[in-house]
């Protein structure tokens, strides 16, 4: 709901809000430019009578004297039959230059206020301000929800490039945008008369003025009593009308000045609504508050970026949303399929199941697990298909399922079946499916089938499960599902660096480039600047399927697309089919591989320190992070190898990174030397410094083998103990992330 509230007005308003933001950003420079030009005397230094007297000397035909919020003084005058306007020096009353308001500025202002469409355009701009307000609030609420509460808005961010930039820029500009949108909406409401701006409250013209010869302007008491910095406007009396008076507008109120007696006549102070309007006007335009104007201008510049990244996020989410044909409403379905999926592959299985059941005459409703409803009045069976994410956690579309289930309850005796999807190589195989099964049981559900798990998307196992389900339903159910593999890339090996042969840990760093494109169109595309490598960052995964195998192996990428090469770090295992294949791959040879994004395993944006921990080939992505640390944020690397003389991976590069401060500190531990130590030993030895970094909000990224990760977690827990923290708390805050194999 909150998301719809954010993306719908966002898409509608994207162009409109961009236009207002860009024009607003241009206008925001004006107050600062004007301030540079203006000479502002100190308070009490000069009064209006003195200035008006000097102006009269230089401009006998002066008609009107205006002071802009930035302090410039403008005189309007007529001379013979000519009229003119000049900027003048407040101290001398002398001409500085002709006053010519910039035509460009007023065009931009008109664009900003009314899209050059007059009154209807003003209404559209007002609506855009309201949309902007809605976007700011819903965006902030979304971000707070994602980061775990309003108090945690400044936490490190996760996600892909667009998501991170959208959120990061958004939270930086939040207050500025809120102020601009709120004040803009207020001004629009005042313009259309929905809010009283106090402008109608005009003083009455004085009925009586003193008779006699007019006194020199410099002697008029009411003007002597007005400080120049309070002046808004002074209008000289019409020389042909002896009954006319000076009209005076100041920051405090408006009135008239008798040209003979110098008395202030029918003065009317500004009321509260006028003062409020002026304050809000100032906050919106930055007039007289040039620094605020610039701040608002910069935050307005975030809007185009947010519009573009926001639209891209929406589009990607829409593209990846599973399309279910013939989805029955939840209220009337006899079979409900709930799906827990992280990368949408489980949805593929759900689609096949949905189609087969529909074909068999059932009314089937499919939905993400997070959309569990309080009631399915017609549902005879609930089928839950779910993957497991990370270390036994819920996948994205099921993150709120268990909490929802305990809140919404289950129809007593509701028949259900849970089918888990996972990979038996991982110790927490289908853990979330197990948890879901247990929770449904605990809430009074009746299992239709025992919990079943599908290993590595096996079509065979899925079809077997379908067969079992069909038997229960009394009708054959044939589930034929072929998993769609993402398109692979052809990569050519261009460089290899070998390490570790001497210490029985042969390891190599391999660098690939996109293989020369085949075919005319592909070559043309490359010529036209289409990057031939897909977009990826260090920390993403490369899935390589060795010849004669169906099962891909995953390697963490040590480079990003911007590095122009695809770099992985491979340790050779005696019977490892894939590692042997890669180690023996000759330079110039090609492989087929698939890049899988792994956006959770990245250093968070921001200035907080990053602690990188790894052993062996786990250094790959960590080295990639350091290489891309162009902002030179503090990064501390703890790494374990065997012998510095043989398997010190990336040694020369790390030394360069230390020298140019991309890497702050390097702590290497070696296990096959006299003074043998492991990476966890270095962590314990450095506990004091690590605690200090963690207190500064540091984030920990761990990459390497499962055993090392376990030892490191224990060591970090030990380090955290005096802080009353644990790895679990850091994990919940997104500050401890692992890439373990």
């Amino acid at each position: 709901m909150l998301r719809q509230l954010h993306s719908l007005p966002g898409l509608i308003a994207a162009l409109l809000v961009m236009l207002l933001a860009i024009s607003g950003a241009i206008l925001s420079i004006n107050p600062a430019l004007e301030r540079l030009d203006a000479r502002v005397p100190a308070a009490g230094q000069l009064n209006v009578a003195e200035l008006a007297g000097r102006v009269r000397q230089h401009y006998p035909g002066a008609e009107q004297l205006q002071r802009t919020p930035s302090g410039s003084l403008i005189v309007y005058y007529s001379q013979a039959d000519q009229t003119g306007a000049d900027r003048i020096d407040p101290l001398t009353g002398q001409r500085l230059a002709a006053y010519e308001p910039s035509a460009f500025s007023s065009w931009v202002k008109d664009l900003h206020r009314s899209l050059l469409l007059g009154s209807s355009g003003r209404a559209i701009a007002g609506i855009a301000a309201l949309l902007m307000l809605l976007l700011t609030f819903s965006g902030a609420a979304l971000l707070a929800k994602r980061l775990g509460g309003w108090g945690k808005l400044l936490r490190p961010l996760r996600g892909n490039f667009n998501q991170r930039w959208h959120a990061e820029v958004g939270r930086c500009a939040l207050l500025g945008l809120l102020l601009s949108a709120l004040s803009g909406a207020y001004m629009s409401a005042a313009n259309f008369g929905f809010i009283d701006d106090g402008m109608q409250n005009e003083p009455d013209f004085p009925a009586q003025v003193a008779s006699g010869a007019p006194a020199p302007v410099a002697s008029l008491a009411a003007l002597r009593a007005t400080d120049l910095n309070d002046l808004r406007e002074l209008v000289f009396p019409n020389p042909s009308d002896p009954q006319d008076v000076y009209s005076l507008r100041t920051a405090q109120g408006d009135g008239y000045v008798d040209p003979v007696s110098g008395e202030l006549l029918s003065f009317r102070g500004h009321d509260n609504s006028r003062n409020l309007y002026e304050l809000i006007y100032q906050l919106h335009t930055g007039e007289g508050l040039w620094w605020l104007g610039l701040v608002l201008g910069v935050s307005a510049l975030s809007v185009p970026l947010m519009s573009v990244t926001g639209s891209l996020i929406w589009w990607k989410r829409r593209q990846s949303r599973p399309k279910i044909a013939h989805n029955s409403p939840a209220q009337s379905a006899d079979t409900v399929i709930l799906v827990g999926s992280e990368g949408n592959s489980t949805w593929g299985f759900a689609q096949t199941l949905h189609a087969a059941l529909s074909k068999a005459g059932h009314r089937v409703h499919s939905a993400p697990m997070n959309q569990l409803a309080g009631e399915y009045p017609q549902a005879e069976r609930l089928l839950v298909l779910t993957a497991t994410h990370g270390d036994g956690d819920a996948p994205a579309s099921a993150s709120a399922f268990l909490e929802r289930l305990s809140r919404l309850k289950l129809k007593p005796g509701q028949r259900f079946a849970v089918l888990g999807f996972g990979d038996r190589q991982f110790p927490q195989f289908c853990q979330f499916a197990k948890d879901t099964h247990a929770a449904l049981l605990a809430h009074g559900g009746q299992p239709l089938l025992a919990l079943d798990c599908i290993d590595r998307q096996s079509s065979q196992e899925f079809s077997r499960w379908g067969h079992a389900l069909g038997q229960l339903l009394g009708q054959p159910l044939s589930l034929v599902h072929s998993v769609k593999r993402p398109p692979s890339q052809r990569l050519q090996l261009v460089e290899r660096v070998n390490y570790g042969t001497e210490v029985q840990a042969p390891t190599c760093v391999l660098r690939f480039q996109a293989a020369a494109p085949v075919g005319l169109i592909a070559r043309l595309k490359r010529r036209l600047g289409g990057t031939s490598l897909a977009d990826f960052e260090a920390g993403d995964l490369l899935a390589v399927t060795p010849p004669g195998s169906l099962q891909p192996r995953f390697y963490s990428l040590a480079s990003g697309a911007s590095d122009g090469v695809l770099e992985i770090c491979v340790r050779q295992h005696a019977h490892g089919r894939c590692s042997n294949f890669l180690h023996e791959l000759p330079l110039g040879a090609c492989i087929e591989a698939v890049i899988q994004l792994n956006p959770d395993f990245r250093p968070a944006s921001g200035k907080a320190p990053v602690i990188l921990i790894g052993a062996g080939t786990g250094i790959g992505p960590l080295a990639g992070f350091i290489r891309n640390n162009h902002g030179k944020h503090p990064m501390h690397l703890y790494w374990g190898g065997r012998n510095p003389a043989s398997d010190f991976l990336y040694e020369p590069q790390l030394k360069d990174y230390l020298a140019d401060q991309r890497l702050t500190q390097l702590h290497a531990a070696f296990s096959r030397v006299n003074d043998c130590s492991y990476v966890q030993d270095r962590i314990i030895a450095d506990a004091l410094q690590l605690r200090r970094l963690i207190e500064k909000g540091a984030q920990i990224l761990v990459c390497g083998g499962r055993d090392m990760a376990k030892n490191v977690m224990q060591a970090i827990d030990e380090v955290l103990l005096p802080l009353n923290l644990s790895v679990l708390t850091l994990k919940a805050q997104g500050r401890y992330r692992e890439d373990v194999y």
Partner: protein
Amino acid sequence: MHNFNLSKITAALGLAGILALPSLAQAREVSLTTQMSSYGGNEAYLAFYLTDAEGQYQSTLWVAGKKAKYYKHLRDWARGSGLNASAFDGVTGASVGSGDSLTVKVELADALIDAGYQIRIDSAVENKRDNRAEVTVPLTRQGSGAATSGTGYIDSFTYDL
């Protein structure tokens, strides 16, 4: 191009008492045509009003510009009319853009013609100067159809009796 047809409210109504006009039957429709110059800026506010030969305000003929909060910038007219809503009720229309032209038809008593009265126009544009009586033209049969130029935003003004 703005064109306004004034309903049959006569601008001379305010004068009826003072001048003891015979009756409205002896009133006529007068069209006021104003061609704005290309002054480049926001739309102008204009006040068309009648004064006596000394320039004393008599009545309002037309106000171009709908927001009363800006009327104070039409300085002589504002002072003369005291900005009482009764002075401009029913005789207001849209403001006029740079280079545009405006024609309005107002009802005027015959007795005011060739009687020493003047038509005056005050003008104002946001962030630009306020012009008092940038047009001052005597209301005579002879002057009907003759163009007068303004000293501010108005290129030319013509009334047709």
